[in-house]
């Protein structure tokens, strides 16, 4: 089955938006880390995601072939045009919230990028290979933090448990597929996220158990990111991020 360019572009932008928005949240930790070492580690992960976003946006621009650039997508679109999954845009919260989110996303991304390496689209396969290498390191780090926080002090345990409860309902969306993504999978280009769920759940359960954290119940789920229905937090990300491009349109920087 073939897909057309506009479908491919929409798909690539989804992956780009996911990476940019979480990079933004991680970058907010700069000079706010609980230790200098951790400050550097958080910005390092932010940089990896920023790099990933730029590769995906660059590819979307190439597919579009209309003179757009990576910055067109990051800076010239409004809230409803962004199609990142909601989990990435949630405010950074405390360190427990940031690491809980990061761990859940890292487990998902590593599995996703591993399969995306086999994409028939060589550009996506190449980006996935790079992302997969970084992802191994990200996951090792975030998993270790879950163990430390979960099995550290009563306070760190409670904070992490609370963070998990607050995030859990946003993980459902990671495994949703719409018609477009189905077509992309059938064309041998994308990844069927539904298939990733059993292994993800198993790995996350194992980590949380080791961290003495109770796996939250899956009795709530918020979705809508792929349709541009966001939390109110995204608009504020964009008003920060796009300020200069909006205030001084059309300039070089």
């Amino acid at each position, binding site marked *: 089955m073939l897909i057309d360019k506009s479908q491919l572009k929409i798909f690539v932008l989804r992956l780009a938006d996911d990476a*940019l928005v979480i990079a*933004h949240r991680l*970058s*907010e930790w*700069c*000079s*706010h*880390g*609980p*230790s*200098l*070492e*951790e*400050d*550097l580690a958080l*910005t*390092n992960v*932010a*940089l990896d995601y*920023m*790099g990933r*976003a*730029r590769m995906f*946006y660059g590819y979307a621009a190439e597919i579009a072939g209309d003179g757009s650039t*990576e*910055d067109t997508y*990051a*800076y010239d679109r409004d809230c409803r045009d962004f199609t990142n999954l909601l989990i990435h845009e949630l405010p950074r919260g*405390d*360190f427990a919230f940031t690491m809980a989110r990061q761990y859940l996303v890292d487990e998902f991304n590593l599995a996703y990028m591993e399969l995306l390496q086999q994409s028939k689209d060589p550009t996506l396969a190449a980006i996935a290979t790079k992302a997969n290498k970084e992802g191994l390191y990200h996951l090792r780090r975030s998993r270790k933090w879950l*163990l*430390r*926080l979960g*099995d*550290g*002090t009563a*306070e*760190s345990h409670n*904070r992490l448990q609370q963070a998990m409860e607050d995030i859990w309902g946003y993980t459902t969306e990671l495994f949703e597929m719409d018609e477009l993504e189905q077509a992309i999978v059938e064309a041998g280009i994308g990844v069927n996220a539904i298939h990733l769920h059993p292994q993800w759940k198993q790995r996350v359960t194992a980590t949380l158990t080791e961290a003495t954290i109770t796996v939250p119940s899956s009795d709530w789920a918020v979705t809508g990111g792929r349709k541009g229905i966001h939390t109110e937090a995204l608009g504020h*990300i964009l008003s*920060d*991020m796009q*300020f*200069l*491009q909006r205030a*001084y349109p059309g*300039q*070089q*920087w």
Partner: protein
Amino acid sequence: MSEEEILFQQRIDAELKVEPKDWMPEKYRQNLIRQISQHAHSEVIGMQPEGNWITRAPTLHRKSILLAKIQDEGGHGLYLYSAAETLGISREELVQALHSGAAKYASIFNYPALTWADMGAIGWLVDGAAIVNQISLQRTSYGPYARSMVRICKEESFHQRQGYHIMMVLMQGSQEQQAMAQDALDRFWWPSLMMFGPHDAESANSTQSMKWKIKRKSNDELRQKFIDQSVKQAEVIGLKIPDPALKWNKAREHYDFGKIDWDEFARVIKGDGPCNRQRLQHHIRTHNEGAWVRDAVAAYEAKHKKQPTRAA
């Protein structure tokens, strides 16, 4: 002078490096702790004005560069804290001295980063001034400090170039962008000159530091070098240095320059800079907010009986 002190000075005079386990006069140790920790704190506090622009950087490319640059600054803070720790003081003590006001950081970071052009001015001028000083410190007499300077200088020269490049692109842009760049230079020029410290005649710590070769060049020599290089850089991209007295002096083969407002310097150090309170409170707040994380690491490691990794 005791025999130990005489031998120590002979080693210094012979350009031999002092290493952590060597005997050293207590004042040499204290002087170095003061200088290295001030340098480390400056790197770390300096992350704040730039960190303030990460989420607002105008392109993804600039954003990535800025993130990487600030990360380098934090890394410099880390090597410098480690270098200070070789003198028998802990990171926790160094941080406490910053929080109590006993230790200082570069006063330039008490000025606000108001516009994107300030990212250019800070890289070009503030990092530029720092490099001029740090190049001379590659030859400082204390080994761990000298070696950390070698690595830091390499990264700082990239920082200076990225800052200058921001200014250059702004000067090639719209009138508003050009005005933004000129305004940043106007605000950061004089404070950058003050970074080199008081004139040699008034510098309290200088004489002994020169004798011990902790300092290798005087404040005025370094300041002159910085001015000479910056004037040309400004001219090339069409920026005007905000000093009507600036003039090439053929006889000296240096630029003459106007009077530095040392009253302002004293005011800002004393606490009347636009951001003194915010900078310090930000650091204290972040440190306190991170306490439960550091406690968790310690508790986890105690439970699992592993070698402690440091998260001070």
